[in-house]
């Protein structure tokens, strides 16, 4: 209970610091959302400044911004004509991104584990081909891979189903790297475990191949993944930005880039706050999980 409380306090402090840093940083830029190429009427500018609190001091603005969290969800975007608050809008986009990247990550990790298990019984040439593919997938950046996939999509025949362009290719571009890493780590770990004395002992006892695999090989080879999963997921979430932009998928990337270009302060801070808050929670929960599994 004490640990949960401390974790919560830590989260609130880190979240507030993050929002403060981002808020101050975006307000340091010369100009603002009301400075357009065609100058606004001074009275209108003043009224808008009053409405969005731009006329007040920066710290005053920050406190008003934080206080608006409960009732208005960090206020409303200045550039978007949306009826939703900045927090609600960014949550809708973020949940799309999270759903897509989470699904891709889970599928690629499971496929990597499954493939590495099956590779033990594959012919040597096939395993080499998979190892080559995984090396290549590990080295190819998401940006380049997504752009190559975009080329493939542009030149694909028009009869290709919509699912191919909207789901399959983005998922491939995003999921190839986690698949490659998981496949390589688990496969090599399995090969090493097969050379250890306990495996020979279990084999000599006459255990069935299925039991031998699941009991003595699989669990030991999956353990190294515990360290890798947070880093890989972090990479997948960051890669989702690129993939969403390349394939024009709805997600937080479009919203965030739009908010930067339009100087939409509330929306930008809400997006980064949501993203950062999620990462802080994710990292701390992974630490707790690891200490629970490997005390």
């Amino acid at each position, binding site marked *: 209970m004490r640990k949960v409380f401390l974790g919560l306090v830590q989260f609130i402090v880190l979240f507030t610091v993050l929002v403060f840093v981002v808020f101050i940083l*975006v307000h340091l*830029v010369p100009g603002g959302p009301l400075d357009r190429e065609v100058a606004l009427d001074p009275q209108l500018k003043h009224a808008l400044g009053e409405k969005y609190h731009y006329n007040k001091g920066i710290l005053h603005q920050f406190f008003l911004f934080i206080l608006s969290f409960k009732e208005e969800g960090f206020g409303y975007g200045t550039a978007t004509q949306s009826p939703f608050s900045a927090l609600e809008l960014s949550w809708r986009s973020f949940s799309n991104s999270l759903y897509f990247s989470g699904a891709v990550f889970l599928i690629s990790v499971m496929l990597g584990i499954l493939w590495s298990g099956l590779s033990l019984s594959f012919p040597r040439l096939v395993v080499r081909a998979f190892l080559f593919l995984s090396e290549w997938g590990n080295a190819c*950046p998401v940006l*380049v891979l997504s752009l190559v996939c975009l080329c493939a999509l542009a030149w694909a025949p028009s009869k290709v189903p919509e699912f191919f362009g909207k789901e399959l290719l983005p998922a491939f571009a995003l999921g190839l790297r986690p698949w490659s890493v998981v496949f390589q780590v688990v496969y090599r770990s399995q090969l090493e475990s097969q050379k250890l004395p306990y495996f020979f002992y279990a084999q000599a006892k006459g255990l069935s191949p299925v039991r031998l695999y699941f009991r003595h090989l699989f669990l030991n080879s999956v353990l190294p993944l515990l360290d890798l999963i947070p880093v890989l997921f972090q*990479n997948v979430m*960051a890669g989702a930005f*690129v993939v969403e932009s390349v394939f024009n998928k709805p997600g937080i990337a479009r919203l965030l*880039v739009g908010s930067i270009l339009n100087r939409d302060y509330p929306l930008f801070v809400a997006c980064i706050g949501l993203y*950062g808050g999620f990462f802080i929670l994710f990292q701390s929960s992974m630490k707790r999980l690891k200490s629970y599994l490997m005390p």
Partner: protein
Amino acid sequence: MRKKICFFLVLLTAVLFLFTAYSMIWKMNSLIYLESRLQGPSWHAWFGTDFLGRDYFARVTQATVITLGSVFISFLGSTLFGAAYAWLWSHAGHFKFIFEQCLNFFIFFPQLILAFIFSAGIESGMMRVVGSLIFAHWMIFAQFFSTQQQVWLESPLHESAKNLGYSNFELRGEVFWKMHLKPLFGILLRTQWPSFLLTESTLSFLGVGYASPYVGLGSLLGENGVALRAHPHLFLFPLLSLFCLYGLLSWISKKGTQSTGFSNLRKPWIA
């Protein structure tokens, strides 16, 4: 030895090619010929022409040079900033934990998100890109310098060198730099290039990096993505250039890590 010669030849050729091409066709790049717009690759225009009839080879070369330039400048900036942070950290006394917490706070964020945060704080141009790259990478350098310093201070070599009568300056300059920092810094230098390149290209591709008339490879790709079906050369040549550049930098990093005996070191990675 042969490998080293090959490596230097490739590097020299690449550098010569980039700078010669850059200086020779700088004027060509700014010329607009509306009557010869959107032409495919030919002997006259190797990579074809763009929407305004400008020579696309010149545009791609210019973009490559701008991208590479921002990568090198940001690398230098990150090194300086990281070293300064590590120096302040080592002299912070009772407040060391603040530096440590601050570094931990930044280090678990994806680099692309950090770059986004900074890019919102600067108006478009080179300062935005370079600043974003430094903001996204400085903590790797700070951690590296700080760890190396800690390792050095705790090593028996430091103690014995001190006993032999080396002054503090000599210790740092001669022994610490040459034996500890230099080889590892060489690895860091080589391995971080691809990461810088990808962050810059991603930012420009998403529209928060370089804006016209100054273009990076990412901005060329972002601008011409819509023309992929009708005018593929506008998209394919920058993509090819980015691919080759990334391959070259990764190869250099691989060779660099192998030559210093760290063959198992993995390449750095961003999104």
